[in-house]
């Protein structure tokens, strides 16, 4: 009877918490501000229907291209910028995975001079791994490789996200899986074929000059008018359709050869919530194919900036455009979305530009620099994607599965309760109540943790109900045994719970250990199974050991019940 008061409080708090956490699933709590629980239970794609895609990212293809561009630009630099000019006669990429390049010079002396230049200029990027006469082999430093690879993944994710935002899917999930894969999960997607097609197209990057001659307020008004006239908004349709419609409506109003695209306003969470319209000149003809590389660098005060390097054709076009548009803004447009629109300060002739981000909070600037450089890379060096796995579940199938599983679960639960109550009488009622508490708090935890309930997850719950039944039976049988031996109810209960406890703990801890392993090694469905198993184990201990003991203690000690029916006949008791 130690800590009885605290245990009662704990039990009541636990049950209340479970009910509160579950509440959003059966009532609308979003309007009640003070209500602590807002989250609903997430259903996996196998239940709610949707599409699950695993895309392989061709990192090596990008590495090959990156190394080639690096070598090309080095070749140019060695003849123009190096103090001792050298000709790089020939180069080839010998290993794409590590960015290994073999350079051939005219003679060994040239190779030495080039090595000096590369060491000074690219010492933090490249390392020499072999030297033979006029040949040298360089590769990227390991930290550079890690960085490059993670950027390729980041830019692919960015590209895919752009595409999916088009569809306005409620809660898309796009995440990295393993070293070179991207997992895309789109719940409730009806238009799967189109989504797949879109995901597989590469991003289009454009550099366009912002036309400041048009009055911004006027543009806003035209857009408003067009929206009212056509009865549409950005939120109600795909972005690309919206842009097309707006541009049709505004033709004639904005100057010839220009278009209206949109960017996300600085403090808005989504485009729909706050967008900025840009009138852009469509005649610049500078795009992703002209850009070699983009990366984050730091200015003299350590402020983050984005460094761009154009290829020779791009550099020429860029020089002309910047020369003609000083003090105008150049928009960076990825898939018709304006990502940034920095001001052109001077003519840039060598194809190396820097976008400064102005004076602000360091972290914000860094985030923006990352966003811009990712967008630039996505458009200039797109990684090829390959579909490796696809699982698509139609909404009717998922609905069928969950309905059937529910039927089975209700029938099973009903049988368990009926049996426990018939066999263990009053104690069976306590056992049934504790199993119900166990399942409720399990679902409550699942909801609160934002975990996803999948079909194998339901099996995990079924399994933990099995454990819960076992825990109850162990306890009841133990109490019976003690009673048969002649123990008083008080003693029988204490002994019954404490002795059954060791078996319950051991078995649950072992299974939990296995569940943790599954969580680490398993994929998709297996993980869902492991999660519910782990949660179920925790709630089994709460419901069947803690909660039911509190009820029984209350009956015996507080309400002075002398004899609880547990399904023992007088004959059994007489044996003792």
């Amino acid at each position: 009877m130690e800590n009885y008061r605290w245990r009662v409080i704990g039990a009541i708090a636990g049950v209340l918490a479970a009910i509160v956490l579950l509440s959003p699933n059966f009532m609308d709590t979003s309007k009640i501000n003070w209500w602590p629980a807002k989250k609903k239970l997430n259903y996996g794609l196998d239940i709610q229907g949707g599409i699950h895609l695993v895309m392989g990212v061709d990192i090596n293809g990008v590495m090959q291209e990156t190394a080639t561009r690096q070598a090309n630009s080095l070749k140019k630099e060695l003849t123009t910028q190096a103090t001792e000019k050298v000709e790089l006669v020939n180069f080839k990429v010998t290993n794409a995975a590590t960015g290994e390049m073999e350079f051939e010079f005219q003679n060994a002396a040239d190779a030495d001079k080039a090595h000096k230049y590369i060491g000074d200029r690219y010492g933090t990027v490249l390392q020499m791994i072999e030297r033979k006469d006029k040949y040298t082999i360089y590769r990227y430093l390991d930290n550079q490789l890690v960085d490059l690879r993670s950027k390729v993944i980041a830019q692919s994710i960015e590209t895919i996200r752009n595409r999916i935002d088009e569809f306005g899917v409620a809660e898309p999930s796009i995440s990295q899986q393993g070293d070179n894969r991207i997992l895309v999960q789109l719940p409730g997607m009806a238009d799967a074929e189109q989504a797949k097609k879109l995901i597989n197209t590469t991003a289009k990057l454009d550099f366009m000059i912002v036309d400041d001659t048009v009055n911004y307020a006027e543009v806003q008004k035209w857009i408003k008018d067009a929206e009212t006239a056509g009865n549409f908004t950005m939120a109600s349709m795909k972005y690309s359709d919206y842009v097309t419609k707006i541009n049709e409506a505004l033709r004639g109003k904005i100057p010839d050869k220009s278009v209206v695209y949109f960017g996300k306003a600085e403090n808005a969470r989504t485009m729909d919530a706050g967008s900025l319209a840009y009138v852009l000149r469509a005649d610049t003809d500078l795009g992703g194919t002209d850009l070699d590389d983009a990366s984050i660098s730091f200015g003299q005060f350590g402020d983050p900036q984005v460094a761009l390097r154009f290829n020779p054709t791009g550099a020429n076009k860029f020089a002309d455009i910047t020369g003609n548009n000083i003090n105008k803004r150049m928009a960076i447009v990825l898939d018709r979305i304006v990502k940034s629109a920095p001001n052109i300060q001077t003519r840039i002739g060598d194809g190396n530009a820097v976008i400064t981000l102005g004076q602000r909070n360091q972290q914000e600037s860094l985030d923006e620099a990352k966003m811009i450089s990712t967008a630039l890379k996505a458009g200039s060096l797109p990684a090829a994607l390959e579909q490796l796995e696809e699982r698509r579940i139609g909404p009717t199938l998922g609905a069928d599965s969950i309905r059937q599983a529910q039927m089975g679960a209700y029938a099973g639960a009903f049988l368990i309760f009926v049996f426990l109550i018939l066999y263990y009488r009053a104690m069976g009622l306590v056992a049934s109540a504790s199993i119900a508490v166990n399942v409720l708090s399990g679902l409550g935890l699942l909801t609160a943790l934002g975990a996803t309930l999948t079909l194998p997850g339901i099996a995990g719950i079924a399994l933990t109900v099995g454990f819960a039944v076992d825990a109850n039976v162990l306890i009841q049988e133990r109490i019976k045994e003690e009673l048969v031996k002649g123990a008083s109810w008080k003693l029988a209960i204490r002994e019954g719970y404490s002795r059954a406890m060791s078996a319950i703990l051991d078995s649950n801890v072992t299974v939990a250990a296995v569940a943790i392993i599954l969580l680490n090694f398993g994929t998709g469905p297996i993980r869902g199974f492991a999660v519910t198993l782990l949660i179920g184990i925790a709630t089994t201990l709460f419901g069947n050991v803690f909660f039911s003991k509190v009820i029984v203690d209350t009956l015996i000690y507080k309400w002075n019940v002398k004899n609880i029916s547990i399904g023992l006949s007088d004959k059994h008791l007489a044996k003792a």
Partner: protein
Amino acid sequence: MNQKKVNSNENENYGRFDFVGKTPLFGGISLLLVLASLIYLAVGGVNYGIDFKGGTEIQVKFAQAVTMDDIRKASEGLGIGEVGVQGFGDTSEFIIRFQGEQGKDDKETNAKLNEAIGKVRSMIDTQFKDKQPEIRRVDTVGPQVGAELKRNGLLSVFYSLLVILIYVSLRFDYKYSPGAVICLAHDAIITLGIFVFVGKEVNVSILAAILTLIGYSLNDTIVVFDRIRETDSEHHGKSSKYIVNKAINDMLSRTVITSGTVFTSALCLWIFSTGTVSDIAFAITIGMFFGTYSSVFVAAPMMIFIEKMKFLAKA
């Protein structure tokens, strides 16, 4: 506690049944079943589903009656290699399975597979248009992912068994742990045998089912071990046979009630559901039986066996 000791001293009998005495019989049966399953799996081969070998499954339901032959005939003309058609649930619902053709490397195989999916889909949409098809599920696993899923699946089973071995040795005694692991392997092999025997393909959800079974069987074995350990500490000096028999007899009603209850509810789940849940419920249903059986007739005798080995080694 004292009371208990007095009681058991008065009654030298360990209970109603001599479980340990039946070890040769049930051990023989178990060995036979495991061997039969292994031979069956080795000869017939495990029928891996698309999760592990790569390929595509399309589940399609027609509003109007369509026969399996219709689909088979229509698929043969597509030139995408072998196509399997299987009825599912209602008469007008089918699963169409194919692996596509082998390319010279994984990448090419994958591309061919994706191409084949397009062909099958357009076949369904055009040739069966008037039957109102509804594509309810499409699962495609490329060869690269398939190999990986298989590896991860096997690894997770292996590590699970390893962890159990270590935990049981630490928490109980090393003499218990081989019994626990052999008992789980026994259950998993026999269930896998049964699964393949009834014609189920082994895929990720079957793996989840087998893990469920291992989970239950483990739970049961640990409960039995716990009771043996407890009986052992109270009747130290008695023979292992006496202790094991007494422990199992003492908890016999628990074993029967728990397995009976869970068996029934798993059976309900199995009867009502289809697909993944049905597979898992089926595994729990079989697993309930073998899990309970193996704790008593495999795990416990194993423990006595290890103890005897230890004794012999000392002598």
